[in-house]
């Protein structure tokens, strides 16, 4: 009898561990594609390998919040986007299309993202006020410093695509 109980317990435990494994939530990623030399897929862990920065701006609640993440231009440079010395001539007709998992999309001209053109920081944030972004906002959100309307502070970002204006 004891043996049977042990077997039942063992089976139960192994099932529990199996179902535990199956429930490991899948991690969201961001794909960088288009006019880049090295298309990338970025995870939250990858984000930690870049220089961290913060931007303070108001959200829809009208209050200031501190957003932490990395400069969008750093990610795009890593993928081989024509920023910095290469952002001239026809490359100035390039834009970044940001897409969210809810289908919302916004565009930035490459020159809006380049330190040689502007001091305004546009970051890919994964934290607000020291905490991870809420599921309905994150895990990745673009934060545009000082922009009056928050409409381009796009939530739940899943794709960054560089393209030429045609």
């Amino acid at each position: 009898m004891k043996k049977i109980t042990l077997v039942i317990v063992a089976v139960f435990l192994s099932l529990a561990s199996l179902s535990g494994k199956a429930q490991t939530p899948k991690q969201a990623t961001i794909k960088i594609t288009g006019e880049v030399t090295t298309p990338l897929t970025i995870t939250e862990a990858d984000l930690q390998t870049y220089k961290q920065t913060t931007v303070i701006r108001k959200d829809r609640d009208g209050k200031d919040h501190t957003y932490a993440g990395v400069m969008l231009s750093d990610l795009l440079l890593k993928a081989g986007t024509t920023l910095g010395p290469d952002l001239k001539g026809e490359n100035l007709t390039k834009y970044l299309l940001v897409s969210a998992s809810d289908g919302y999309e916004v565009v930035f001209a490459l020159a809006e993202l380049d330190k040689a053109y502007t001091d305004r920081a546009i970051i890919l944030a994964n934290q607000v006020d020291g905490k991870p972004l809420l599921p309905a906002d994150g895990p990745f959100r673009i934060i545009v410093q000082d922009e009056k309307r928050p409409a381009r502070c796009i939530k739940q970002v899943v794709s960054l695509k560089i393209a030429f204006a045609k």
Partner: protein
Amino acid sequence: MKAKPHILNFFRCTFTGKAGVSLFLLLAVVALSAFTYYQDTVPTGAFQLVYPANFGNRVNTPADNVTTKQGVYLGRLLFYETRLSANNTLSCSSCHQQQKAFTDGRALSPGVDKVLSTRNSMSLVNLLWARKFFWDGRAASLEEQAAMPLSNPHEMGQSLNVSAQKLNGIKSYTQLFRLVYGDTLVTGDRIVKAIAQFERTLISANSPYDRYLKGTYRPIPQELKGMALFNQAPQPEKGIRGANCAHCHGGAKNYMELFHNNGLDSIPKDAGIETITGLVQDRGRFKVPTLRNIALTGPYMHDGRFKTLDEVVDHYSNHIRQSASLSSFLQGESNEPGGRSLKLLPAEKKELIAFLNMLTDSTFINNPQFADPRLSALNK
């Protein structure tokens, strides 16, 4: 110059193979009526898709399936063709009926095996601008979309190859395929391409709301109040009342191609896009459908749970279910400070619905160019 199939041939070749003499005579009458209804030959050339400037030109037509008059002609026949189903009883039009703005009035729809679909039949309108199809957005083109209900065992239940084989034996069809594609071969790919071409012509741009935007319709006060609520976000601290529907349903087309968890359930039975991505952020997330012709397309939501627009408005007003996946714009969106749903007044709900009725385009649902070509011929 390619020979153009005569419309009389279409009906003759289509129907006489297995029919007796009396049926032949009956169909001969039908064919003659059809002859008087149609032009002598199938129209050919580029199809001019006409729409208002405020709809914009961000259209979605694949480079390898340019819309032609002959393609649309063929696509319309195929849209109403029951041979494309396993038991020759269903066509696309079974679940997408023009009079119901291309829906079927059911919560879920029975397929060839009488098993119900898992989600509500979506209305077909202004698809020229759509880029993601189905309630979960899993198809990137109308061509890709059309293939799925055709072959799903619980919908039309017939593989594209079998459909192609069936049509390959019908001369009227092979002649049309030659006109559209250059040779008589019928393939699954060519079938879905033609259907997609027809669907791209389903343009609705003549609702009272369209005419209001053009300056040719003057809304009654109740409609105007509803429109204001529709477009305005609630700001109780400033005394501004609103329903903010336009956040997801705004613009001239009343369609923005978004995917949201709109608070139907805290724990959804149908996980929506999460089923595809495995991401908790996508739990209970579904396409935000067009509101064009919304008064005609009930029951509502991906599972057809709401029978009337009153129930839909009541949901947003009073019954938003909280969860981590609830879309952020619905969190704390209320006309009452600290409220968790819109909290509209009874009169405001009526005003909203008055505005929603402005989105019904009766020209669209009665346009003979979208109707079953065989029935049109019979009624003439």
